[in-house]
């Protein structure tokens, strides 16, 4: 199956095999295997510092794994990194908004950065109820509104893999519902989502990865060092 808008095969699986992550001197997790099929969802849980954000950054290729590999549609993602990155949306802790730009300008800039020439800006603004502030500089937006703007990226330039790091942070009840609706719609269309969160999420059929279970033991840490 090929996604009409992005032209990418969306039925390939995203597979992590024996991933290990090191931050500075510390081995954060080792031996992590997981699978994200089309339409699937992965919920990353774990205590603070257990590596939820690091795993998402590994998935986004922003970090290189210490060991293990990441496969997309059967091939290592770094074999064709540009194609894989085009399939990924990464929403991190930071919102990347420029105070001097309006939400409309931010969305078209982010879409241009992905090489998307015809982004669905109005649809994205409407999906997150940002119409009223669409032409106001971002410096006047609240934290929740900036969060909504970051999430609007997902709608403006579609991509099959969503990596969301604490997406509910600063969102109100209405925002939570809209996000849940977007994720459900995305998965119904064959998209997949990996989400790191401390809050209870109602994602049907989601696989849960407990990162504390993969915390590096002393022996494992030594093995990687050697």
């Amino acid at each position, binding site marked *: 199956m090929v996604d009409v808008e992005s032209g990418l095969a969306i039925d390939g699986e995203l597979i992590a095999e024996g991933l290990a992550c090191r931050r500075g001197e510390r081995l954060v997790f080792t031996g992590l295997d997981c699978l994200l099929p089309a339409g699937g969802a992965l919920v990353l849980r774990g205590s603070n510092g257990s590596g939820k954000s690091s795993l998402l950054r590994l998935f*986004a*290729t*922003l*970090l*290189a794994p210490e060991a293990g590999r990441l496969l997309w549609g059967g091939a290592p993602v770094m074999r064709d990194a*540009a194609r894989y*990155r*085009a399939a*990924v949306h*990464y929403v*991190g*802790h*930071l*919102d*990347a*908004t*420029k105070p*001097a*730009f309006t939400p409309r*300008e931010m969305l*078209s*800039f*982010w879409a*241009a*950065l*992905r*090489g998307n*020439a015809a982004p669905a800006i109005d649809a994205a603004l409407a999906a997150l109820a940002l119409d009223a502030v669409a032409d106001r500089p971002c410096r006047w937006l609240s934290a929740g509104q900036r969060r909504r703007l970051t999430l609007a990226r997902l709608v403006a330039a579609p991509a099959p893999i969503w990596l969301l790091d604490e997406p509910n942070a600063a969102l109100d009840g209405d925002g939570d519902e809209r996000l849940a609706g977007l994720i459900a719609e995305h998965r119904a269309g064959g998209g997949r989502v990996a989400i790191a969160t401390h809050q209870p999420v109602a994602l049907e059929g989601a696989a849960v990865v407990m990162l504390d279970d993969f915390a590096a033991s002393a022996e494992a840490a030594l093995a990687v060092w050697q």
Partner: protein
Amino acid sequence: MTPLLGLFWCELRLSYRQGGDIGLALGFFVLAVLMFPFGVGPEPELLGRIGAGIIWVAALLASVLSLDRLFAADYADGGLDLIALSPAPLELVVLAKGAAHWVTTGLPLTAISPVLAILVDLDPSAIPVLMLGLLIGTPALSLLGAIAAALSLGARRPGILVSLLVLPLYLPPLIFGTGAVEAVLAEEGSRAHLLLLGAVTLFALPLAPLAAAAALRQALD
């Protein structure tokens, strides 16, 4: 719009929107040059002789001051992650950002330099060569500056670190830029100096994007 063109326009619009960016660099440039007649005395002969050096040094310092604009904001607000995920290679991203930096600093500095040349009593016959030198040399300032700006990401006091890293790199453009003007004043040809200045810029053109992109990758990790 392609990613690189989008980035270039974004940078230009940001510095226009934030207004102060171009104005600050220009204001600093003018004030720094104006300090010299007060410091060394107003003798036209002395000022005319060191005028080109004053203008070039002030242009270097104004350029250093504006380097933090290049990557620091993107690094702090997470925009660098999105840039790294864009299909455009980081090397070309550096080039696009460097080009925008030059349009908002090097180009205005070059444009205003004749006024300052008159203020420091530089011989009018040397003004075209001064401007031509700045036009050829200021792109090298933006490019070499990008290396230092990328290297200093994540440092505790990036501003000072950038100055320490970049000022030694700015020596060749300074030497050949002032050399070209002095050659005119001595009624010799300035062609050799301008060619060497162009060589510095052409050298920085491929080198700076490679080095700065490597530093950006380091900063992302």
